[in-house]
């Protein structure tokens, strides 16, 4: 009971701000008689969202599936590689500059190259793209968690004649867990964004990203906004999921 009151109290400022924001938006569109191609009212966006819900859901499923598959694959690969990096330090010197270099260019453009490798209707290029983005985020963070352990902890383990494997299991992995969850919090929304943006580089016109661009091209702005709303919701869902995972981990720790 108290908890629920507390939660509402915490959420209240955000809810009030959101209501004011959309209220002002709606009012501004009506008061200044803004044309729909310039700015669409929230009420008509919501209307389109309801009307087109089954299409929106289908498109969201396509983008969401791409994002999810890429997120899982990238996380698994990133974690696996970070173990390799922490075991063989020389790999670190090879892979880290590569990771930095790849993060410096807008790597979405790679999807154009990948599209040429597969058939035009394939979802694989988009999934590979998401995997790549997630992979580097997870790799860099988890590798840090595995290597940056307290020197005192390592000395204590060595004083107990612990093997490298025991140090890995009892010190490095527990130390890296929070790093993994932080990286997931960054990677989950990034996966969704990458899945959308990948759709702008051709391939099937079935996901949220391509729906947004084609509706804008047809001047159906309210419908495009409805897809944008759905994209927001999808990104939010991924983010909340990663936060939930982290809090479950915390709870395990605090009992």
């Amino acid at each position, binding site marked *: 009971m108290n908890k629920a009151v507390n939660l509402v109290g915490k959420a209240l400022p955000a809810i009030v701000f959101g209501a004011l924001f959309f209220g002002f938006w709606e009012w501004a569109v009506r008061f200044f008689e803004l044309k729909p191609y310039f700015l669409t009212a929230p009420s008509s966006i919501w209307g389109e969202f309801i009307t087109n819900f089954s299409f929106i859901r289908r498109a969201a499923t396509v983008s969401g599936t791409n994002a999810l598959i890429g997120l899982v694959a990238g996380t698994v690969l990133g974690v696996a590689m970070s173990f390799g990096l922490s075991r063989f330090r020389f790999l670190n010197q090879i892979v880290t500059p590569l990771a930095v270099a790849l993060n410096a260019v807008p790597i979405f453009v790679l999807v154009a190259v990948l599209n040429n490798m597969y058939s035009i209707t394939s979802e694989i290029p988009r999934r590979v793209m998401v995997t790549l983005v997630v992979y580097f985020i997870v790799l860099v963070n988890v590798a840090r968690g595995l290597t940056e352990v*307290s020197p*005192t*902890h390592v*000395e*204590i*383990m*060595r*004083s*107990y*004649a*612990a093997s490298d494997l*025991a140090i890995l299991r*009892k*010190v490095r992995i*527990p130390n890296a*867990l929070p790093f993994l969850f932080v990286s997931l919090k960054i990677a989950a929304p990034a996966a969704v964004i990458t899945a959308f943006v990948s759709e702008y580089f051709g391939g099937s016109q079935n996901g949220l990203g391509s729906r947004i661009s084609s509706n804008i091209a047809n001047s159906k702005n309210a419908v495009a906004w409805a897809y944008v709303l759905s994209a927001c919701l999808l990104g939010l869902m991924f983010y909340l999921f990663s936060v939930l995972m982290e809090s479950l981990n915390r709870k395990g*720790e*605090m*009992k």
Partner: protein
Amino acid sequence: MTAVSIRKVSKAFNVGKSNQVDALHEVSLDVKPGEFVSLIGPSGCGKSTLLRLVANLLEPTAGEVMVNGKSAVTARLDQDYGMAFQQAGLFDWRTVRKNIELPLELKGWDKGDRQTRAEEMLQLVQLPEFADHYPWQLSGGMQQRIAIARALAAHPPLLLMDEPFGALDEMTREYMQGELLRICAATGTTVVFVTHSIPEAVYLSNRVVVMSPRPGRITKIVDVSLGGERTEETRNRTAFFEAITTVREGLRGMHAAHVGLGNDNR
């Protein structure tokens, strides 16, 4: 048999390079079973290095270190000593109980035995009600007591301590010194203790080893006989102050020759 036997041990870092540091030069020292020996000296005198050589966390460049009649490597692999550092070094993701059980886990003890021993150790450091707390929920002094409980969990005959109370406030520190003496008396553990504090070294030790830097070596060994059990009252005794003065003179003698040249090699 001596608990620790150090024979003409030298340790140099960066051997053969322009920045070679001679941390220790031909140091010899014997520690008897049940004895409490403190190593004291300015930064860079090699006291922590010497402790790590005994722990086999470092290898000597020359000379020989024996622990419990075995080579230092064998002694480490047999877990013949426990170690405590300035940072308690407890694992935040383990409960207090699980922290104490760690060395036993590594020895392959089964769960029941581990739990029994952890209970025993918690009784010994007088914190049984904190078994299921996490380390970050405890004060610095409590954390250090848990670290001592962990170091002694496997009942090693030797305890190596590197400025374990260095980060505590003065009152907690004096309390911890009393606790340490009580625990060592109860378990009969031999202790080698590194410290910066003269009163701490004198209060705790049977012998205080005074070291000096460049190269690290032993310059003086002060026998401390305060007679009978050491209590808070001991700190007011004339013999206590006299021992402090003797150690201080030992430190000052070499300090005059090495003013401001301290170089911590830890």
